[in-house]
């Protein structure tokens, strides 16, 4: 059999697995999602509001000249349980802002608080889903072991670990793939593992840096629907970075537009008052798309 043919077959099988996973997960939701439970969870996690005031980040110039301002005096408040989108062109500093909230990058000046605490370092209350699953998942661990990583670090007992990983592997629709290694999974499935892996640690906030940017268009649509479902199911706060207006409108409750860098800041915030699941054929969707597009056309 030719290599090309085998490859094509492998891809078809992956896509089929992707569809099965989505279906299984959707069926699960039908049983488990109760608005009351979600609301309760949301209430319990209040106090994880993100409070950003006059936040700046600059790097000293290599030659000793004027420092390079990436972000300048950013103001933003993200409420607990909100799905917030950071939208902007490449190089505007949206990933830097996410890195600041995650605690990977140190701020230059301003205020950056999560709840009552100033952010100084990474913490398990803020989970990060990276764009590249290949460089962030642990390739030497199986799907289950990846999902249980944070719990092992906390020294959670094995039976409890198993119960939690079962639950989140189910939630992202990967039941049946527990013992596979990441290299055996498709791109979309790897991002599901990343999601399950961070959710297992029960973080208050999910920070997502263009997590679907490397996926093909069809898988991306599936993952977008799945993410909305998981967000509504778990009531987590989500901050999602993207440069894709359509993606922003499909997912976000509010969309923060970042001005082009350097010295970038959040120039406008849009409320997206459309019901989920959103329809790209909806005239209101279209109208908002055009208005947001206007920011980037100048």
């Amino acid at each position, binding site marked *: 059999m030719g290599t090309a043919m085998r490859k094509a077959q492998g891809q078809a099988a992956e896509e089929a697995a992707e569809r099965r996973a989505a279906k299984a997960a959707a069926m699960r939701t039908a049983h488990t999602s109760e608005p009351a439970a979600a609301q309760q969870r949301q209430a319990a996690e209040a106090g994880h509001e993100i409070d950003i005031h006059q936040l700046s980040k600059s790097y000293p110039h290599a030659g000793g000249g004027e420092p390079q301002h990436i972000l300048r005096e950013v103001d933003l408040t993200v409420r607990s349980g909100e799905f917030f989108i950071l939208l902007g062109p490449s190089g505007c500093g949206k990933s830097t802002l996410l890195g600041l909230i*995650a605690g990977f990058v140190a701020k230059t000046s301003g205020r950056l608080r999560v709840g009552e605490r100033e952010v100084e*370092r990474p*913490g398990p209350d803020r989970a990060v889903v*990276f764009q590249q699953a290949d460089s*962030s998942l642990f390739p*030497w661990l199986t799907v289950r072991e990846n999902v249980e990583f944070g719990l092992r670090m906390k020294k959670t007992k094995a039976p409890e670990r198993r119960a939690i990983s079962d639950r989140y592997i189910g939630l992202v629709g990967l039941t049946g793939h527990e013992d596979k290694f990441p290299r055996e999974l498709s791109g979309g499935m790897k991002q599901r593992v990343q999601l399950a892996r961070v959710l297992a*640690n029960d973080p208050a906030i999910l920070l997502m840096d263009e997590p679907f940017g490397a996926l093909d268009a069809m898988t991306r649509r599936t993952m977008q629907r799945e993410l909305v479902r998981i967000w509504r199911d778990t009531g987590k706060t989500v901050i999602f970075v993207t440069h894709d207006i359509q993606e922003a409108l499909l997912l976000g409750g509010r969309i923060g537009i970042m001005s082009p860098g350097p010295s970038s800041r959040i120039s406008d915030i849009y409320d997206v008052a459309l019901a989920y699941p959103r329809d790209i054929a909806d005239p209101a969707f279209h109208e908002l798309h055009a208005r947001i597009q206007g920011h980037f056309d100048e």
Partner: protein
Amino acid sequence: MTITDKTKRVLLQLAFWAGLLALWQGLASAYGPEILPGPAQTARGGWELLADGTLPSYIGISFSRVLLGWSLGSLIAIPLGLLIGRVGAIRAFAEPFLNFIRFIPPIAFITLFLIWFGIGETSKVMLILYATLFIVLLNTLTGVLSVEEDRIRSARSMGASDWQIVRHVVVPATVPYMFTGIRLAMGTSFMAIIGAEMIASNEGVGYLIWNSRLFFRTDWIFVGLISLGLMGFVTDRAVALLGRKLLGRYGVVSTGSLRR
């Protein structure tokens, strides 16, 4: 690959070795046995050394020296490499030193090691240890420095402490590099032990090769050379197989022999 492909490859290999033996025999007949002993004569010499037990005992001695020095060297090099890789302050001092000393071949130290550690086993084991240490250390160091930043960051956001990051992220991510270093060091160790045995030993394959000159037994020299090749080949394959079986999940997949 189909069966016929495989058969064809085996046949080609056999033809190659048969051709090589024929060439060797031809050259031997042309130059005479004192200069170049033929395959048959080498086989007879080998049988002599096998029958009186010299060859097995010498191979055993050289092997045990290599294995001891090599395992000790690897055991010391891996934690050192991790430490130097993770601590920037230590790395700033260690790196220039490592890049200086790695150019000094083990053989150059033989005389000094004999003075420092005596003419017994210690000096030979220390020489192998030296030969292994820097190769494994530098490979481990490279591995530590090439761990993806995202992996460390994701572990940190999942609540891992510095020590947990080393143990659960850096070490597993570095395993393929350590393994490459260990495998390369095996080759260098064989070179070092032969040198040491030629200069300062009464046993071992190096001694056999060097001492045969006194009796003008070029066939014994050939036996020594072939033994060396086989010892290296067998150990390398054994190490590669072990690596694949035990460390497969860490991405150790190398099957063929390593380029040196």
